[in-house]
């Protein structure tokens, strides 16, 4: 009897193992990913859930349509696992450099537009899928500035798939109390003229800290004022007759841009070094106006969940960026994209996952809305899935303003030494605004520095 029991147990073990073996026929592919965190995206970007339980419950719609799940549906014999290194933004450049220098075997790396050229020049990333991206960009109407921002040396290194629009957010009660309307402050000159009165009203009548808070000295604000530079006919860099790059800001447009920021400060704008708290300050009604991104929407709607869109737009107004009279709206529009390293263990899978993400409007729309980001193509802006979803969260007038901001975007020059170049101009901005150096003098110095950087 005992022998029989042992035999039965052994047989059932063999049978059990055999069954388990059949279940493991699926090929498991681990995609190694490096990205930055996003408070609205616990699943790390648009790819797929990591630690699926919570995501599946919270976002069942997206969970099923996430690029990784769609890929698995298209390849029933494959199971994708995401192994994600989430690096804080403050440390991201350093980690990117370490990945490049140690030839780390990532399948996908999230890259900011301003670093595309430098990182592409390292040879760490592959342009081997360039034609696919080019075709996608053409078919889907990727805005020209994002086309240029995605390319280096004539090749696409990915698709800038999300962007944001910096905007001036306004407490309308303060604005109206000061005797102004949104229309009055939508031009650069109008805002400047209204600012002293708005500042005084904010302080005196509403007990606020000031009228407008303007971000300063943070990595991501370094070149935001360049939208005004482009509006006024200047540029960061331009090509001369010999086809060589040279500074495009050491001119009247550059001087007007820097003087405009200085005038804003002289008229009451507060330079905000603690830019991390800008949105919170605005929500706490410490400032009548703030210069925040389109992603502020999620903070506003979650603070006022019971307010209708009409009530929200009555309460808070938004201007994508101020426009000089008689000029076209131009704003610096960056974004993020996925790039594939040459050393990627699964480059084809990684590429297909990206294309799945880009082509699946359902999941793409869901992620944009979740992160409070904006699309980079006409195709996605027009997508009913996106528009339905986004206008559920964003009041229609705000949405239209953001779309204008993105459409009027300018890209950064696709240049390896961009980080050094932008710093030179940023130093000039600070010298004018903080140290009262004449704009022409500061720009001369910056232009000299930029020429040296370009020659080096």
């Amino acid at each position, binding site marked *: 009897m005992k022998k029989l029991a042992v035999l039965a147990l052994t047989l059932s073990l063999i049978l059990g193992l055999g069954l388990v073996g059949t279940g493991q026929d699926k090929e498991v592919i681990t995609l190694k990913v490096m990205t930055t965190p996003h408070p609205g995206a616990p699943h790390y970007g648009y790819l797929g859930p990591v630690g699926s339980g919570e995501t599946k419950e919270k976002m069942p719609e997206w969970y099923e349509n996430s690029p990784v799940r769609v890929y698995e549906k298209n390849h029933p014999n494959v199971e994708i696992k995401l192994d994600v290194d989430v690096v804080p933004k403050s440390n991201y450049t*350093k980690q990117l450099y370490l990945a*490049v220098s140690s030839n780390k075997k990532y399948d996908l790396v999230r890259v900011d537009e301003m670093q595309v050229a*430098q990182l592409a*020049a390292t040879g*760490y990333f592959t342009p081997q899928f360039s034609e696919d991206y080019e075709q996608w960009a053409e078919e889907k109407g990727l805005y020209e500035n994002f086309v240029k921002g995605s390319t280096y040396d004539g090749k696409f290194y990915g698709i800038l798939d999300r962007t944001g629009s910096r905007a001036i957010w306004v407490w309308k009660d303060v604005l109206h109390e000061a005797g102004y309307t949104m229309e009055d402050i939508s031009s650069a000159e109008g805002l400047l003229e209204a600012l002293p009165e708005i500042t005084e009203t904010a302080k005196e009548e509403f007990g606020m800290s000031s009228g407008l808070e303007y971000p300063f*000295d943070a990595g991501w604000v370094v070149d935001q004022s360049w939208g005004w530079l482009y509006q006024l006919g200047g540029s960061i860099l331009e090509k001369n007759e010999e086809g060589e790059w040279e500074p495009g800001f050491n001119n009247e447009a550059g001087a007007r841009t820097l003087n405009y920021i200085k005038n804003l400060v002289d008229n009451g704008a*507060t330079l*905000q070094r*603690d830019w991390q708290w800008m949105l919170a300050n605005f929500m706490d009604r410490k400032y009548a106006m703030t210069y925040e991104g389109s992603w502020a929407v999620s903070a506003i709607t979650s603070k006022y969940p019971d307010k209708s869109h009409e009530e929200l737009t009555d309460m808070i107004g938004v201007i994508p960026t101020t426009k000089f009279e008689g000029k076209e709206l131009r704003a610096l529009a960056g974004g993020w994209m996925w790039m594939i390293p040459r050393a990627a263990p699964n480059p084809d899978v990684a590429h297909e996952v990206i294309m799945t993400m880009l082509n699946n409007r359902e999941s793409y729309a869901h992620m944009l809305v979740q992160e409070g980001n904006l699309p980079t193509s006409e195709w996605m802006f027009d997508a009913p899935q996106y528009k339905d979803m986004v206008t559920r969260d964003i009041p229609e007038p705000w949405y239209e303003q953001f779309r204008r901001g993105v459409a009027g975007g300018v890209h950064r020059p696709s240049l390896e*030494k961009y980080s050094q170049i932008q710093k030179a101009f940023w130093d000039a901005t600070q010298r004018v605004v903080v140290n009262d150096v004449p704009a022409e003098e500061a720009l001369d110095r910056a232009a000299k520095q930029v020429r040296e950087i370009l020659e080096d």
Partner: protein
Amino acid sequence: MDKYRAYVPYLFLFPALGILFFFQFFAWGWNINIALHDVTIMNFRRAWPFVGLENFRDIFTDPVTLVTLRNTAIFATTGIISQLLIGTGIAYLLFRAERGIENFFRPIFIIPWLTSVLVASFGWRLVLGRDTGIVNMVISSLGFEPISFIGHPATAMLAIVLANIWRGTPFTILLMNSAMTSISPQLVEASKIDGASQWTFYTKIALPILKPFILMNTILITVWTINAYGLILNMTGGGPINATRVFPLHGYLAAFNEGRFSFGAGITILSVLMTLVLIYFYLRFYDADVV
């Protein structure tokens, strides 16, 4: 077998020397190698052109370098002197205090030293913040306009110096207090019997005993202050307009924000040389006989 006995200690030393060699000399060799070549993030994965001392020339002709050296001098001098004076003063007060008071305050004084750089820098940003800071709450309540301490070149340096003193002083308190307790009570008693005044006791008896401790303390806080760029990076990022960009931070930002590794490596080497020169002068100043 006995003839090999003399080599046994070296055998035991070997693992430690190996680790030391790897972590110190290899790292230094690698750093020097990078500083003598033209290495950027763009060409890191290709052949590195040998440029000799060109990177050092670039460092000294860079207009920002001079600013960073001046900033380093201000930051280090004020930081080191303040830490020494304040730390020694508090150590003395603790030394003279009742045992219960000493035991109560000593752990409290050490807390800043135990705080991580990240927490300390974030804390100081909170304390000095324009809209969120306690200091500005007081300033506003007195009817004055709030001050953006870390947003203006004139006050940003003050902010980082304060934060560094706050974080570094406890070490001096700890070390100097321990040093003071090592002075024999019999010596104190004997000096009293011989009629020595307080001043004579401290300058002629206590100070020579404390000298090696002061030297060690000065060396350590010099090294830590010069290399305290993590605190600055998190508080001001070196700004505004390079007002708080100290020399080692200049190297760090060049290497890890702009990908200019050779430039950064060159600055690292120069920073260490600068510190060594300072230590040499300390030794000369304090008399070499104390070490």
